[in-house]
C-alpha cells in the first residue's frame, strides 16, 4: 500500500527542506521526498499549489472518552483532528474515570486503535483522580502508552506533591504538563479580570493566578531537573518567566492555543459562553506578549486545548457554563491569519510549532518527513478562502467562537500512516 503526494511545496523544518517535491509513503512509512517520485501502485494526491508538511501534532486535546461521550468520543474527536490537519493528538486525562491508571490508559489506547482515524497518545494524570494529593501509577501508565503526565483542568496546588511528581516524571523520562492556575486566586472567576469583567459584572480570573503558579513551578523544575511544560500559556509575565528559564538552560517549554493569540477579552461577545475557557481570553497586552514569545521562540508549540462541551451545557447563564471551546479545525486557519499572513512568522516556523515543537516535548518520533519515520503528512493551503461552519464539524460539540469566520488558507488533506483519512471537498 502506498501513496504519493505530488507537486506540493514540501516544508520539513527538521531537514530544513523547502522545495517543490513529491512525498512517497510505502507501507505506512516515509519512503522518500524528491521530485518526480512514483510507484506503480501508489495512490496519487495532487498537491500542486499546496504546502506539504510533516503530520501536525496537537499535544493538548480533550476527547472526552471514557465518560463524557455525549460531548465527544475518540472517534469523533479524531475525525475533527483529521479535518483540522492533525495526524496525532495527545489527549488529556480528565475523563470519567480519570486516566490515572494502567486500565484507563490501556482502554484509551485500545479504543483509539479501533476507532480513531489519527494517532492518539494518552496523557496520564499526575495524581489519583487529579485530586492533587496522591501520585498516580505513572510508570505503569507510561508502559501502557502514556506519553506525558498532567492534571490538566486542575493544577497541582500542593508544591510538595508537585515536587515529587516532577521527580517521578524525570525518572520515567516523561514530561510533566501543568495547567497553571492558583485556585485560590482564580476561585469563582469566569473570565479574565480586567476592564471587561468589571463592566459586565463577571467575576475575574487575574493574570496573577497563572503567573504565581508558573513562577513556583519553574523554581521546582530547577530543583528537580524535570522536563516541565506550561499548558496553554496566556499571560505576559508567564511568557517572560518561561523565556527566562529557557535562557537559564532549564528543560522548560510551553504551548499557546490559537484562541489566545487570536483573541483578547475585548473581543468577547458579552455573556456568550463560546468565549469562556481556561485560561480566559486575556488582555490585549497579554495576547501581544504570547505572540511575541512565539515569534522569539520562547513558546515552542501551538496546541488547541480542544474542549468539547454538549450544547445544553453551554446554553446556560454564563457563570454556570463549563470552560472550554473546540479548536481542532480552526487552528491552521488562525495560525495563518494571525502569524503568517501578518508577516510575523515564516511558513517554516509555523510548521515547526505544529511538528518539531510539540514532538520535542512529547518525543513521539514524529513531526518530520525523514525516510523511515511514520507516514504522517499534513497538506494545507495558504490562500483558499473558506468559512467555518461549526454545524458541519465531525466533532460532537459546537462550542466555537469561530463559527462563521472566514479564513484564508486551511487544511486540504490529512494522511496518517500512509492512509488518506481526510480531504477537503474538491481538493
Amino acid at each position, binding site marked *: 500500500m502506498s501513496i504519493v503526494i505530488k507537486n506540493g511545496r514540501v516544508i520539513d523544518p527538521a531537514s530544513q527542506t523547502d522545495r517543490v517535491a513529491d512525498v512517497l509513503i510505502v507501507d505506512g512509512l516515509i519512503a522518500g521526498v524528491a521530485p518526480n517520485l512514483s510507484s506503480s501502485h501508489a495512490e496519487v494526491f495532487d498537491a500542486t499549489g499546496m504546502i506539504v508538511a510533516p503530520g501536525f501534532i496537537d499535544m493538548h486535546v480533550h476527547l472526552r472518552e471514557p465518560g463524557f461521550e455525549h460531548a465527544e468520543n475518540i472517534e469523533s474527536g479524531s475525525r475533527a483532528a483529521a479535518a483540522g490537519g492533525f495526524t496525532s493528538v495527545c489527549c488529556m486525562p480528565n475523563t470519567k474515570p480519570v486516566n490515572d491508571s494502567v486500565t484507563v490508559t490501556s482502554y484509551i489506547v485500545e479504543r483509539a486503535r479501533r476507532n480513531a482515524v489519527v494517532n492518539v497518545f494518552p496523557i496520564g494524570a499526575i495524581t489519583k483522580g487529579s485530586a492533587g494529593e496522591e501520585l498516580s501509577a505513572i510508570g505503569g501508565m507510561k508502559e501502557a502508552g502514556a506519553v506525558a503526565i498532567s492534571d490538566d483542568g486542575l493544577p497541582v496546588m500542593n508544591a510538595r506533591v508537585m515536587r515529587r511528581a516532577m521527580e517521578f516524571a524525570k525518572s520515567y523520562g516523561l514530561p510533566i504538563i501543568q495547567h497553571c492556575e492558583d485556585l485560590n486566586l482564580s*476561585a*469563582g472567576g469566569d473570565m479574565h*479580570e*480586567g*476592564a471587561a*469583567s*468589571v*463592566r*459586565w*459584572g*463577571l*467575576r*475575574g480570573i487575574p493574570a496573577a493566578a497563572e503567573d504565581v503558579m508558573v513562577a513556583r513551578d519553574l523554581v521546582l523544575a530547577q530543583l528537580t531537573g524535570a522536563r516541565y511544560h506550561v499548558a496553554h500559556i496566556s499571560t505576559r509575565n508567564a511568557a517572560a518567566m518561561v523565556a527566562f528559564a529557557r535562557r537559564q538552560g532549564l528543560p522548560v517549554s510551553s504551548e499557546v492555543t490559537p484562541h489566545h493569540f487570536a483573541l483578547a477579552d475585548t473581543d468577547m461577545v*458579552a*455573556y*456568550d459562553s463560546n468565549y469562556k475557557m481556561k485560561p480566559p481570553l486575556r488582555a490585549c497586552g497579554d495576547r501581544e506578549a504570547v505572540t511575541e514569545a512565539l515569534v522569539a521562540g520562547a513558546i515552542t508549540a501551538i496546541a488547541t486545548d480542544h474542549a468539547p462541551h454538549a450544547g*445544553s451545557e453551554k*446554553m*446556560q*447563564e*454564563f*457563570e*454556570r457554563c463549563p470552560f472550554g471551546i473546540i479548536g481542532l479545525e480552526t487552528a491552521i486557519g488562525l495560525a495563518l491569519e494571525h502569524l503568517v499572513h501578518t508577516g510575523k512568522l515564516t511558513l517554516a516556523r509555523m510548521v515547526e510549532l505544529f511538528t518539531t515543537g510539540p514532538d520535542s516535548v512529547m518525543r513521539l518520533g514524529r513531526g518530520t518527513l525523514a525516510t523511515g519515520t511514520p507516514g504522517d503528512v499534513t497538506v494545507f493551503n495558504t490562500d483558499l478562502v473558506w468559512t467555518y461552519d461549526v454545524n458541519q464539524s465531525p466533532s460532537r460539540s459546537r462550542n466555537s467562537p469561530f463559527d462563521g469566520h472566514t479564513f484564508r488558507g486551511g487544511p486540504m488533506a490529512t494522511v496518517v500512516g500512509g492512509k488518506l483519512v481526510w480531504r477537503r471537498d474538491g481538493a
Partner: protein
Amino acid sequence: MHAGLLGIEELNRAGIEAILARAKDFQPMQSQTVKKLDTLRGKMIVNLFYEASTRTRTSFEIAAKRLGADAVSITASGSSVSKGESLVDTLNTLAAMRPDAIVMRHAASGAPHFLARHLPTPIINAGDGTHEHPTQALLDARTILDRASHLEGLRVAIIGDIAHSRVARSNVFLLSKFGVDIVLCGPASLLPKELAQLAPGVRLTTDIREAIKDADVIMMLRVQLERQHEASFPASEYFRFYGLRLEHLDLARPDAIVMHPGPINRGRELSSEVADFQRSVILNQVENGIAVRMAVLEKVIG
C-alpha cells in the same frame, strides 16, 4: 436591537430623557385616589424573580396594574426552577404563553442578555447579578431631578460595595451620559481600579471624606454579603471607615441629598440618624420607582 430594557449602557441620552419625562407625568397619579389607567389593558406581564426581592417586584407589579395590565409574579423557589429546569427551558415555557414582556431578576450577570438572544419576548432587566439594574438608575435620576434642574455638573458620590453593585454600574452609565462628576468610594478590595474605565467622568477613592467633599448627591450602597465569596473587608471595621454618619454631611454641599437603593442596614452602611435625616430621600426613591417603571413598561409594551 432587542425591544426590552436590558441595561442603561446601551441607552442614549434622549432615550433616558424620554423615560424620565414620562415618569414625571405619572408622578401625580401616585397620590390620587383613583390610580389606574387603561393604557396597557389586555397586556400581560410576567415578573420572574430568581432572587429575593420585595421592593422591586412589588414596584413592577403595582406599575403594571396602574397601567391596566395584568401581572403575574413567579419566584424561583415556587416554580419548576427548583425541579432542575434550565433557565432557557423555563423562559421558553413562559414565552409560549405569550406574555407581552418578561420582567426578570437573576443572580447571574448577563442572564437576561443571554436569554434575549434566544427569545422573542421583550425582557426588562430588574437586576442581573453584579451587572446592571437599569430601572433603579432611572428612578435615582428621577429623584435627583425632582430637586435639581439638571444633572450636568452635579457631583455624585457612590459609596460602598461598588464591585458587587449593579446599582452602582447602572448609575455610573446613566450619570456619565449627562456629564455628572462621579466619585466611587469603598475599600480597595471592593473597588477594582478598572471601574475608572466604566465611563467618562469617574474617579475612585478609598477615603469616604474625600468622596463626600462638595457632593450634591451621596448614594450609599448596601454591603452585599450574599455576593461576597470571601472576606473582602473586616465586617467589624466597615461602619467605622465606610459608614455614613451625620458629621460627614458637613463636608458635602449644604443642600446635598442622601440616597440608598434599599434595603438599608442601619448601623452598617449608614447611621440611623442619617437614614431618618431630612435630606434623606430614600422613600422618595421608592415612590418614584413606580412612576419610572410605568414609563418603562409603557415604552416597552405600549
